[in-house]
């Protein structure tokens, strides 16, 4: 009896879904662009493998070009030959791609699946939809890791430990760009968190941030690749250094190095998909179909089994479980965990979109002097 019901329901569902699925021709190939490494692997296992299991006719190809996605998409667009179907970028790049007319504006509620309780996608993602083109995936943070064996008996609890050469002597590593560093410098110079961007807008405020950074300039190793700080920490080259929280997780839990995370004043940032403009109809249909599946509540929660980045949907948070290989609880390693997120800082996209060029020139000039 029950079986019959299920079969009937399935048949009804097929009938209901059938016509829409047939009317739009779907391409069989999909080219996904991501960052490579552990992150791309987590995406592959959490969304691509189950998607292909459901749609065996599909071949998914990864292109590890997210780092240069904006430049490459612009070049593809100029050449009139866009070969990517879905591109994983950080939020600030999504805003730029949207600004340049290279990413498609989408209706989040129409394209994306609602939460299991029926909450529309735009509410489930909430504030994380920072651009009309952006489909959020994860929340990650840039924060500090330190060597537990090099800080004596007083491990740092405050981000300003980075600027405290007396208490924590030794080299530190910071990213070779103004973003985040300027904010941390001002916070540690006594600027209240809420006023940071107002202060940073003025010449005096910028001078103040540079003056604070000057105090440690001789002791900083500047990194440009996310893998640098974990390596420098593992080799004992630096006492403390900034990097992405997922990188620290792998140093600590997977490689068992004497490193701990300093969550104070971690800077949240977002990563997600954009759909390039200029796709043919069948490819666009496939991209939409895939992205709807890949960003539903369960898939985003699944991704957290492989990497310690927080799912962008509110409804995914309760479903986050244990690491797929290590079997440890992932929640305490998430940047969004209440215990870790006591003092956080949200990176101001709009502000940096304006000031990036200007401050970057100043920052590079400051570095070179």
């Amino acid at each position, binding site marked *: 009896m029950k079986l019959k019901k299920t079969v009937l329901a399935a048949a009804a569902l097929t009938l209901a879904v059938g016509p829409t699925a047939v009317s739009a021709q779907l391409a069989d190939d999909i080219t996904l662009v991501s960052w490579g490494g552990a992150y791309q692997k987590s995406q592959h296992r959490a969304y691509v493998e189950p998607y292909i299991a459901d749609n065996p006719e599909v071949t998914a190809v990864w292109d590890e070009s997210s*780092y*240069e996605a*904006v*430049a490459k998409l*612009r070049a593809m667009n100029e050449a009139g030959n866009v070969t990517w179907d879905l591109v994983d970028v950080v939020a600030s790049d999504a805003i*730029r791609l*949207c*600004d*340049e*007319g290279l990413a498609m504006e989408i209706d989040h509620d129409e394209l994306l699946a609602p939460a299991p309780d029926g909450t529309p996608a735009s509410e489930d993602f909430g504030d994380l939809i920072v651009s009309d083109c952006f489909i959020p995936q994860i929340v990650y943070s840039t924060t500090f890791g330190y060597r537990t064996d090099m800080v004596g008996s007083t491990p740092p609890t405050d981000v300003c430990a980075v600027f405290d050469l007396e208490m924590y002597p030794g*080299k530190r590593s910071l990213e*070779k760009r103004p973003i985040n560093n300027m904010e941390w410098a001002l916070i540690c110079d006594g600027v209240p968190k809420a006023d940071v961007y107002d202060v940073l807008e003025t010449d005096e405020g910028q001078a103040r941030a540079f003056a604070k950074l000057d105090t440690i300039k001789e002791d900083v*190793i*500047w990194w*440009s690749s996310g893998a640098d700080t974990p390596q420098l920490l593992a*080799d*004992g*080259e630096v006492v403390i250094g900034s990097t992405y929280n997922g990188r620290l997780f792998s140093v600590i839990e997977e490689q068992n190095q004497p490193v701990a995370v300093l969550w104070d004043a971690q800077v949240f940032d977002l990563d997600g998909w954009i759909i390039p403009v200029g796709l043919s109809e069948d490819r666009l249909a496939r991209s939409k179909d895939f992205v709807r599946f890949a960003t539903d509540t369960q898939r985003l929660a699944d991704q957290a089994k492989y990497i310690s980045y927080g799912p962008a949907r509110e409804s995914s948070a309760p479903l986050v479980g244990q690491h797929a290989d290590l079997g440890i609880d992932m929640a305490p390693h998430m940047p969004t965990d209440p215990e870790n997120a006591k003092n956080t800082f949200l990176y101001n996209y*709009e*502000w940096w*979109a*304006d*000031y*990036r*060029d*200007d401050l*970057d*020139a*100043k920052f*590079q*000039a*400051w*570095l*070179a002097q």
Partner: protein
Amino acid sequence: MTAIDPPVLTADGTPLKASLRRALRREKARAFLLVSPLLFFVLLTFIAPIADMLFRSVENGIVHDTIPRTVQALRNWDPGESEVPGDDVFEAFYTDMVFAVERKSHTRLGSRLNYERTGLASLFRKSGRRVGKFDTKDYADAFNTLDPAWGNPATWDVLAGSEAANLPRTASAYATWLEVIQADGDDPLGEEPWDVLYAALFSDLMQAPAGGFASPLLNDAQSAAARFEPISLREQFGAIDEDWLDPQVWRTIQTYAARYTPGYFLNSVDLKLTADGVQYRDEGDRIYVLLFGRTLYMSLVITISCILLGYPVAFLLANLPLRTANLLMILVLLPFWTSLLVRTSSWKVLLQQQGVINDILVALRFVDDASRLVLINNQTGTIIAMTHILLPFMILPLYSVMKTIPPAYVRAAKSLGATDWTAFWRIYFPNSVPGIGAGSVLVFILAIGYYITPELVGGTRGVFISNRIAYHISSSLNWGLAAALGTILLFAVLMLYWTYDKIVGIDNVKLGG
């Protein structure tokens, strides 16, 4: 006068001269055909991209293409007054912005202008969201109440044709509107005219001579429009953001309105183009001249270290018995075949403060544990790593030149009483100079364009200008500036090559034989 000699004829009766010329032409054509694949390949993949890059460094069509009416209106605005431009500029800008937003090109223009004046990117983005919701809706309502014919695009179509002389703004706005609608694949007749058209019409009616229209519809509209409440577009823009009332914003747009700009080149040498002419950048922003200087200096140091290290190796290679020489040659080539990134990363492991070299020095008590040497993330790191990477490019030309120096020369010198040193310095070394020349040119030119290695081991003071070029290409997307920097670098190399030719003579460069 002698009679003209009859032309020499070939067997088939054509003059010999013509026949020869034809044969020669055929030869030439065949030769050209043979080289043409390579020629086209070089043109397509080498010359064309370079030309394109040179062009990008001055090209600036985006301002003119995105806001043509504003650019036109700004021509009559004298920035000396340091006042906000007049209503005509705001009207033109409103029309341009509405269509730019529809084409999604306004944000792109914002990012372009943001390179010159910080804050314009968000100003354009923000204004783009609001420009469709201006109070100009009131004009549309008022005209439609006056005569429902205004709601019909056909009316506009007729008037934009027949009355174009008296309705310049309306006609031009209508033409763009048609383009935009048709670009979307929609039928213009099925669309409602946009507010921007009514605003243009209102402005035209106010400025045309009273009753000067052929169409009664327009004459009626004109007398009625005089009673409409005028909407100041300047206030509308001012309400979005006060920055629109800042003359500096308009001066920036005016300064960068030209289709071709020297702006990128000026930026590349730490100058900037402002409304008041060319000025120095602020002290804290100057970076490129320093980086160009540093690039040249470090490339020179790297070239000299390559000569010092490579010369003895090449000498050994050329003078040892063949079997030993071959083994040594493999040692030279082995790193050459290894991935660049692997070699660079290995230098990290060796050179860092907790690295192999420092560990050994500490173990041997050459340096104190507390004062380990800083060998990486500075100029030293870049010079060490790049000297190693570029060394084969010095050794190989040196070796091939040394191989051709007959050993008899040195023997002859010695038999005439020269010491070892004199024989080397007076006989062998001058013969090997072409190899040094070739190696130096190769190493120097390769070094000047390197960016991966300096990025990884150069820290802050060991980076090259190419790192900034890469940054502007892939990260900041300021391709114009990247192109200008690249062009300057290209010409610097050509100049150096030319000087080298003048001083040493390029005939003295030998890669072998």
